[in-house]
């Protein structure tokens, strides 16, 4: 059976599984729909959070980015995991103790202001739509690249699946499908990694192979990689061209951004208590770490394998018979272009340009000592996708990787849809515009806005594929979450004196400064020479986070203190079990034990 058939089987079986789970876990109340009834087990929630968090970018693109960036890729590894420490220590347990449904819920109540709630809704919607466009695009790419289904049709199939379990099951349906999706994606990621690690280092544990020696020698794998890439004119693998200030700022923007992302925070509303929220954050990071500690090994192995098999290989054109030509090249003592390269070339992810006309594929960096121009341009995403074939693994493993990539994209898309639908039905309709609405109507509006959001997301996915700007806007999502949402949530818990004037100022300062900086340097031709303190747009959220917090504190001190009942509320959420009556009447629910 060939690769495409295996892919169809895996994708079909996993999709059937997701739909089955959705039917089994239908939501019957707003509580089920928004927070899965507040009674998800911490370990289960940890697993769902991991799937929610790890997107198509984590699964498909991150290892490839690291393969190219070497040490520079560390910003993603530390940034996208370290945020969970902030979540567990500074936000999750307290927000759970607060006991409501959404992030704007907290902002609106803590800062006793509908305007603050609406600003938070705007931030949450912006961050989530930015993110979801990338996921839908990922779904389209997976379908068109592997199953031969057109890009647009792929996005529509993805939309139908997500529609089904998000609209029907809400948070409850999403939670249990995410658990299944985590299992699929982590299996699909680690199996090829283990085989590749065995081939290169002889160690079955990729994390140990990463720091081990090349198989059958006593040369460290990373030392060999450094030598190989340096000789081809690239930067050493363990170094970077980014400045230390920039590496610091990007890592920090990603960390604080992670902690401020609404779709991650709301997962911690689904557990029973503040203590369960802490434990759950720990388990979420365990499940995330399985992939995130494997990724640097996959990146390094992939870079090594790619150079070994492709550099200096004799190219075979499409009109020649691959088998006979390859046999001739080998007989003449040469190295033919590998078969996996030929099969992936059709997708446009690899490109060979024979500049010196010798028919040999020279792969070189910008400072090649032999002065030869680079002729091979691989797309970063190729490294995870082609990994199983590069390692000579059977066709079913590739089918597994396809199903894994789709699981990663769909699980993140679903989590984001929840944020969008609850922001509209709960925060805008119920809490701001029509407070007298009953539960049943709210649930209907929630389903309706989830459905609307699926359609918008699909259209954004189609649109984004033409503009190709997703990667740039994702930096925006993190910077915005770090600069506008993190400071006011953190100060709302740890500083009683923070009032509504301060909070609104902080959110607006964070929103406007980050947006302007990114737009100027990404889309209006700003150059690196003009960066403030040498910080790139990816890292600027970290700087503006301090600016937002600083102005918010200043404005708070210059205006009246928050009312006594708000100060009592803050004291209550700091100490588990003391929260009494707040919110019961407003459609929220204090945690029960």
């Amino acid at each position, binding site marked *: 059976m060939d690769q495409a058939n295996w892919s169809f089987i895996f994708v079909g079986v996993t999709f059937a599984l997701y739909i089955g789970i959705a039917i089994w876990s239908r939501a019957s109340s707003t509580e089920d729909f928004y927070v899965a009834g507040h009674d998800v087990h911490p370990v289960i929630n940890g697993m769902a959070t991991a799937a929610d968090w790890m997107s198509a970018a984590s699964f498909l693109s991150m290892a490839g980015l690291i393969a190219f960036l070497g040490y520079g890729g560390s910003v993603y*590894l530390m940034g996208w995991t370290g945020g969970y420490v902030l979540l567990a220590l*500074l936000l999750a347990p307290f927000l759970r103790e607060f006991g409501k449904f959404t992030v704007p819920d907290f902002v609106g109540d803590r800062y006793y202001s509908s305007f603050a709630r609406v600003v938070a809704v705007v931030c949450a919607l912006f961050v989530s739509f930015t993110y979801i466009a990338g996921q839908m695009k990922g779904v389209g790419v997976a379908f068109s690249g592997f199953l031969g289904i057109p890009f647009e049709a792929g996005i529509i199939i993805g939309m139908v699946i997500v529609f089904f379990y998000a609209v029907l099951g809400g948070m409850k349906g999403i939670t249990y499908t995410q658990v299944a999706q985590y299992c699929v994606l982590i299996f699909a990621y680690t199996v090829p990694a283990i085989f590749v690690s065995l081939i290169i280092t002889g160690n079955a544990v990729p994390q140990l192979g990463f*720091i081990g020696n090349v198989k059958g020698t006593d040369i460290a794998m990373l030392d060999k990689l450094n030598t190989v890439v340096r000789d081809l004119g690239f930067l050493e693998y363990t170094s970077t061209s980014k400045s230390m200030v920039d590496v610091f700022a990007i890592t920090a923007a990603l960390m604080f951004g992670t902690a401020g992302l609404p779709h991650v925070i709301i997962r911690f509303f689904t557990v029973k208590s503040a203590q369960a929220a802490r434990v759950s954050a*720990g388990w979420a990071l365990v499940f995330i770490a399985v992939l995130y500690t494997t990724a640097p090994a996959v990146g390094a192995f992939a870079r090594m394998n790619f150079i070994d098999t492709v550099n200096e290989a004799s190219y075979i054109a499409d009109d020649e018979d691959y088998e006979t030509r390859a046999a001739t090249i080998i007989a003449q003592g040469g190295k033919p272009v590998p078969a996996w390269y030929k099969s992936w070339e059709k997708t446009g992810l690899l490109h060979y340009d024979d500049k010196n006309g010798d028919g040999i594929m020279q792969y070189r960096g910008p400072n090649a000592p032999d002065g030869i121009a680079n002729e091979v341009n691989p797309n970063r995403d190729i490294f995870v996708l082609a990994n199983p074939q590069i390692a000579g693994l059977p066709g079913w493993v590739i089918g597994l990787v396809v199903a894994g990539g789709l699981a990663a994209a769909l699980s993140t898309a679903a989590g984001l849809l929840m944020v969008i639908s609850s922001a509209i039905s709960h925060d805008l309709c119920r809490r701001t515009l029509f407070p007298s609405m009953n539960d049943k109507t709210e649930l209907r509006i929630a389903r309706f806005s989830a459905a609307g959001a699926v359609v918008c997301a699909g259209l954004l996915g189609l649109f984004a594929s033409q503009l190709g700007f997703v990667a740039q806007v994702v930096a925006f999502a993190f910077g915005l979450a770090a600069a506008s949402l993190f400071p006011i949530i953190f100060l709302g818990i740890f500083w009683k004196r923070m009032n509504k004037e301060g909070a609104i100022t902080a959110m607006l300062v964070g929103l406007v400064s980050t947006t302007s900086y990114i737009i100027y340097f990404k889309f209006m031709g700003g150059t690196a020479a003009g960066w403030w303190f040498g910080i790139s747009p990816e890292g600027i959220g970290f700087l503006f986070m301090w600016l937002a917090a600083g102005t918010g504190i200043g404005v708070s001190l210059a205006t009246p203190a928050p009312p006594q009942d708000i100060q009592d509320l803050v004291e209550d959420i700091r100490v588990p079990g003391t929260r009494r009556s707040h919110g019961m009447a407003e459609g929220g629910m204090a945690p029960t034990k």
Partner: protein
Amino acid sequence: MGVSTMATTDQKPDAKAYWSATKRLTVSLLIIWFTVSYGAGILFRDQLDNFSIGGAPLGFWFAQNGAIYVFVALIFYYCRAMTKLEKKFGVKR
């Protein structure tokens, strides 16, 4: 963690002492969080790279693998320590 605040003897939770102990614990853990990632992985990376763990330069390893292991350990330590604090100060869970 050296939590030095007195334990209460009656049943009412000592919310003030509990909160200051919580803040002390949080700050200590965040210092470790900062040290392993920004410290070992970025600021002092060049110095640490003079040492190695297996075949990897130590600073590079912290940035790509080591910091993540410490993050996991930090959260679970925090859970345990908070459970103890809640017991000590009579906070109902």
